[in-house]
Each structure stands twice: as C-alpha cells, then as structure tokens.
C-alpha cells in the first residue's frame, strides 16, 4: 500500500507492505540509512526519530501509523548549509560517540530530552537516556555533551 508522510521537511510517499515498520520504511523505502536498527525488542533506541515533535523508536511503530506525520530523522537535524545542530556539535566537541551506530538515535533522544528538561542535571540526563544503549562510550561523554548542548539550545 502507498504510505505518505513529511520527512525532513519534504513530502514523501512510497509503497510498502502493511507490516512494514517505520524504521524499515525510512531505511529501505526512503534510503535514509542514518536511522539504525540495533535490536528487535525496542530496547536499544538506535532507531529513534522525531514524529510530530516527539522522540519515537521507529522500530516500534508501523509505517502506516505514521501516515501524514511530520518526521525528522538524523539527516534532517543539521541546517541545510551543513551547520550542525547544537546537540550534534556538542557530541563532536565532547567525544560523545565512538563507532557512531547508536549515535543518531542517541542524538535524537537527547534533543527531545533537552526540549522536555531545559538545563537538565546529570541525574536527569542519565535517567532520560535510559532507553538508548551505547556499548562504546560508557555514557560519560554523552552525558557531558547533552549537558553542554542544553546550555546552547
């Protein structure tokens, strides 16, 4: 069936089976491969995107449930001239990423986190990032990055 939505500010539509997950639709039908899939139980958060302004795990929702939705993926976060979003810049500045695989989901979650908790404490950041697994950084520098970005957002 045909599924339509707005992704990173552009109207898109593509054919997909009813059972297609939003993560698969974004990756395979739209070829936006920055959104990653790291598990099959919605535990790792690598697939986190923004749907109608909220951080959502895109492996946990069907593409057709996002019909007509406004979606932002990691590819849509930086400005059109390539200038990084303050959260992306803070991750770079504070070495909040290593292999880069969890990073898109982590950044999308972190943007939502700061939106909901301006000027978050370390404790709040750690609690709110509970839904995103990172196996490389030990979270230390991610926490620093989110804290630093919160001052600039």
């Amino acid at each position, binding site marked *: 069936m045909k599924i339509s939505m707005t992704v990173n500010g552009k109207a898109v539509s593509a054919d997909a089976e009813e059972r297609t997950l939003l993560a698969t639709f974004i990756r395979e039908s739209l070829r936006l491969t920055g959104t990653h899939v790291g598990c099959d139980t919605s535990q790792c958060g690598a697939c986190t995107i923004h749907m109608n302004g909220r951080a959502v795990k895109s492996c946990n929702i069907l593409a057709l449930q996002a019909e007509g939705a406004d979606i932002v993926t990691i590819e849509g976060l930086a400005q059109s001239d390539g200038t990084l979003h303050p959260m992306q810049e803070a991750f770079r500045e504070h070495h909040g990423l290593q292999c880069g695989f969890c990073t898109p989901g982590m950044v999308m979650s972190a943007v939502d986190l700061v939106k909901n908790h301006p000027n978050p404490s370390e404790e709040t950041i750690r609690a709110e990032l509970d839904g*995103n697994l990172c196996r490389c950084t030990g979270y230390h520098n991610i926490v620093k990055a989110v804290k630093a970005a919160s001052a600039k957002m």
Partner: protein
Amino acid sequence: MSDMNSIGVSVKRKEDYRFLTGAGTYTDDVTLPHQSYAAFVRSPHAHAKVTAIRKDKALKAPGVIAIFTGEDLAAAKVGGLPCGWLITDVNGQPMKEPAHPCLAQGKVCHVGDQVAVVIAETQHQAKDAAEQVEVDYEVLPAVVDVVSALKKGAPLIHDAAPGNTCYVWALGDKGAVDKAMAAAAHVTKLEFVNNRLIPNAIEPRAVNASYTRHDESYVLYVANQNPHVERLLMTAFVLGLPEQKVRVIAPDVGGGFGSKIFLYAEDVVLTWASKQVNRPIKWTAERSESFMSDAHGRDHVTTAELAMDKDGKFLAMRVRTAAAMGAYLSTFASSVPTILYATLLAGQYTTPVIHAEVTGVFTNTVPVDAYRGAGRPEATYVVERLVETAAREMNIDPAEIRRRNFIKTFPYQTPVALQYDVGDYEATLAEAMKIADVAGFPARRAEAAKRGKKRGLGYSCYIEACGLAPSSIAGALGARAGLFESGEVRVHPTGKVTVFTGSHSHGQGHETTFAQVVASRLGISVDDVDVVHGDTGRVAFGMGTYGSRSLAVGGTAIVKALDKVVNKGKKIAAHLLEASDTDIEFKDGVFTVAGTDKAVPFGAVALTAYVPHNYPHDKLEPGLDEQAFYDPTNFTFPAGSHICEVEIDPDTGVTKVVNFTAVDDFGNVVNPMIVEGQVHGGLTQGIGQALTEGCIYDKESGQLMTGSYLDYCMPRADDVPSYKVGTKVTACTHNPLGVKGCGEAGAIGSPPALINAITDALGIREIEMPATPERVWRAANKKA
C-alpha cells in the same frame, strides 16, 4: 587545524561529522543492484540429530530464489570453519578440533546453530519462507556448563573430543609451586566463576555478498574487524577460492569488542551462495540472532590459590581453570583461556613461581572466543580477587600488600613466559589513591552507615599484554598466522597524504589518531591526511584490530613507511638544493641543508616526485608512496590501578557505584580525548560484567534464557557513574611511538575492583558475578 605537532592533543575526530549526520555507511546500509536477502533456519535445540530437512513448501513461498542446506555445501566441497591457534595438550597431542560446518551436517550442537539458508527477493519473504522449512530433529541430551560437561557420563557433543575435552594445557613449574605452597605461612584459596558474557556491539553482524561473472570475482561487505584475515581464512581454508578474486570490505563498523574478529558461517554461506544464485545477497542479524550466533566471552570456572610468607610476600600461585569453548572452536577460541590468560597470572607482582592448568571444554552453547580483554580480564580477576582476599586474611592493608609485591625493576621476566619492558606500578597506584581520595573513605563509610547504607572500597592493579604480537613468539605458542601489521603512506603531488592501514577502526578513531601521527611527522595539517582502512581492494595487507594493537603495531608500520618517505624526500631535496643527502635535515615540514638557510618545503618535494622535470633519475624512481610492514619484538604491557567505591542499600540489594577511579599507563598518548573515551567504554563493560550482565542457559533444555535486551541486562546510562580517569606514562621501550594500547584496559581492570568493593562493603569473602540486587540482598541479609 594548523598543527605541526599534534601528538598529545585532543584533536576532534575527523570521522564524527558523517556519523553525526547519518552519513556513516555500515554494511546493512549497502544495497546493491538486484539485491536479494537471506534468512537462516536455526536450531531450536541445544543438541540434536537432524534427520530430515524438507524444503519443498518453502521453495514455493513467494519470492524464494533458493534454499541451501549442509548437503549442498558438502556436495560443493565447502569446508568447515578453521581455528587459527593450535594448542598442544599436556599429553603432547594437538587439541581436538571437531568439524565446524557452516550449515549443519546431520547434527546441531547449540541453540541457534545454522541449519539452512533461504534466499528471497525481500527480507520479509526470506524470513517467511525460512519458517516453512521443515526440519526433523532427534533431540539429544545437552550439557551447557563446563563442570557438568567434564563429568563422567555427560552427553558427548563430538565423537572427536572424548570427555568433551578440547585440551588440557599447562604453563609453569608445577613442582616448584607444590613445594612453595607446602612451606608457605598462609595460602589464600578461592573458587569462582567468570561469568559468560555476550558482546553485543550495537550494530548487529551483517553481510552483503556478491559475485560478478565478468571476472569471476566476489565482493563481500561484512561487519568485521580484520577483513584481510577474513579473506585469507575464507578463501584458503573454506571455499578454496583464489584470494585475489575476493574483495572484502568492512566499511563503517558499529563496534566489535572482539566479536567481529572471527570468520562466521554466515559470511561463508552468503559468499558461496552469491555465485549459485548470481545475485548479491544480504543478511543482517536480528538482535536475537546476535545473542545466539555471535561468539560469547569468558565462561570460566576456576580454583586459585596464592601462597605467601608471614609478611604477605607472595611465594607461589596455583590456578586450575575449566574454560568453555562452546559447541565448536571459533577462530581464536583456543588461545584465549591459555596464551592470553595464564601468561598474565603474574599480574604486577613478583610471585616467583606460578602453575596454571587449563581444560578447554565443549558445551552445547554458542562458541566462546575473544571479547574485550580476551583472557586478560579473567586472569586479572583471579589475581586481584586473590590478592585482595589475601590482604584481608593477613590483616594487611590491600594497597600495602600490593606495594610489598610490586615488580620494581625492568625488564622483568615473569615465571609465565612474558618479559615486561617497563612500568611504574607504585606511582600508578599512588596517583589512583590520591584521585579516589582513599584517605577520606573511612569518613564517607561512616556517613553512609548513618543513612543505613554500606560502603565498600576495592582495588584492582591489572596488567595486560597488548600489541599482539611478535609473530615468532606467537608462532612458537601455536598461532597459525603472523601478527604483524602493514601501512602505506601515499604522498600525492600536492603534498596531501592518503594512509592505508591494515588496522581497522570500529569506533576507535583511527582516522584521527593515525592522521595526527602522520601530520606531526610530515609537518602538515591533520586535515590533509586521509586514512583508508577496512578494504582488501585498497589496503595491500593487514591483520586488523584486536588486542589493543592498532597504534602500537599498525601505527608503527605507518611510522616505518613515513621514515621511508622522509628518506626518499631527503634525496629529492638534496638534488633540488644541490647538496649531499647526508646533509639534509627534515623538520616541521621543511627539508634544509644542515647549517644553511637553503630549504625546500615538503610540498615542493612531493610535487617534484610526480613532476620530475628536474629529478635525480639516475639514483631514484619518481613517486612518493611507501609501504612498510612491522612485526613487534615484544608485547606491550599497559598497566593501571582501578579503585571502586560502592554504596549498597541492604534493604534492596542495589549496588551503586559512587566513585570509580582509573589511572592507567598506556605509554605515550597521541589523543587524550580518544584514550579517555576508550577507558570510559571499557570500564562500563567491566562494570556490566560485575553488576548486570550474565548469559544464562537452562541446564535441562540448553535454551538460551538471556536471548534479548529484555533478559540480558546491558549497562545503561543510569547504571554507571561519571568516571575519574588519569594517566601515568612510562613509554613503551620497543616501538618508536612509545605506545602500549588502551582499548581493553577498562574491561580488564574493573570487575575485580567492583567485586572487591562489594565484598568489602558487606564483609563477605565472595559473591558471584553479576552481583545483581538479588545476590547482593541475599549476601547482605544472610543469617550468620
């Protein structure tokens, strides 16, 4: 950045922009024209005979292109997966190497063992059809733990390995240890389990294999840490293909931690099948497949004894370990609990005699192989749990007992085969104690007690052997491969540089660190150096990344190539400056005639090399592109002191890591930011092992009980603290960068520090890892 010398500077990573904007390219991101997809049929049983496979129904399912089983592979003479390290049994015989088929040949030996592959037009269709492949199993009794597997009458997994024993291997002087033990003032004895872990890189394993009839060649994209090793093993030992016909590309790889070193069945099956169906085939593991098919780590059962005199001076150590191999021998499985384990049992101490005996045991579980630290965390756990317990039993301060036994003069020959080149263990411990404010601990403990909480402090002073490895020593110990590295420095006519390295980055930031090394040596900007890795079609050769070896071995190969570039550059400069080569000096990017102001910049020399209008053709070929191989002369020996402080709530059993200090000696540091990041990640995996992670198999059925992130507890952001990290530097004496390696240290040192802290807090002798709230609560509330 303008950086004549960026060594020791936290240069921001060159690779980050692509990762932060979704432009990274991992294997699953690669989709090829006419792409098809694979799904594997896996055994639901831990141990069974496969009596029939019926694929008729599945073949008729929509979109199915082909289905292959072990019978097809056998008919095509596709071999089994090889093991790269031969361990010799104490009886002089080679270890037992049962066949490790890529698809089951009449038998399955663990849950998740691959039985058939279905290839279809879409991923959904492949998975749907895989469910329609009918397999008849005759279920056999299974055994999943090493103790049961070694018992008389245990189910036999392989006829080729009686008693489920792969080998019994020993190291050290047994007679001398027995004698010292008998005469000692005190012997501390512990029995413990080193819990089985599942590596869980967040990127699942993935493969995309294609075949081109045009020149009968293959391209294999694979999430892998050492593409050249993958190619060599697969072409020469399994598929019998000409090596030059196979290109292996490991593009961006989302973490490895050891689990992506190995040659896996899926890689072989897809490569072979891509020719059969003449289509590119992609397979990406579901996380549940990762749990039951990625090689696991650890899984030891150990009895260890430490003998000492009345002053706590160590006299002897005796260690008996049963180590799981799993159902088959994975690529380096045999070396992990032997060569990478028993050789580290001296730790940082002068224990004069040590004897270790290790039994490699087959069980009906996923194969066990290297996982971050690989043998060295297990050794450190033995040594540091023994030392801390001995201190308590002898009533000696745990820091003091360590100081009394530290190795203080170098080089130091251990009784377990290694020769440490350099270190300063007292200074490292003193620095860690200062940062951790050990002096203030009694007050913090008393304050916590007022709140009803139990505080504890634990130490761990680890050592590891990294920079794997001197090929001749490794060869003498059974390695079936060389362990050198290659590097190529290609200077372009404009003076920009591309570096080709056999090391592989899957998070370590080589594109930045290696560029810093090259830029500093050539006096150019880091931005003018690109690092290429992970592609057998572009990099001449390589052994890849594992064992914290990349900078110490791969970096040294690059330095050697740089030396060749500079030497040739000097000759070109000498010609341009009309001087003798021996009078030319190179510094900060400029060639000068010594003692004069005659100079020519690096860029001009590069241009001359490629536009040789005025060139010493009689002495030199044009071009400025040099390759070097480096085979280390010794291991490197990173060492450090970790101090963990925990606070336990005796009502809930929850352990909070309130302070964790790591002071490490990695030798010289090129990029402190990256090194600290490696430490943070390693510590978290170590804390995971000690507190949350544990792979559990059901003893009766052999089912994997921890088969998803719902059951296997990965450390999350709120499980760990912010760390206090410091470094002490004693430069490695035998490589030009003076570096030792930092990738595994955190995971090696931290588990015993944490368990030492918990046992200190609770005043108990032992607690099993992971120290879950349930275990801690039971220990805290045990009636005396």
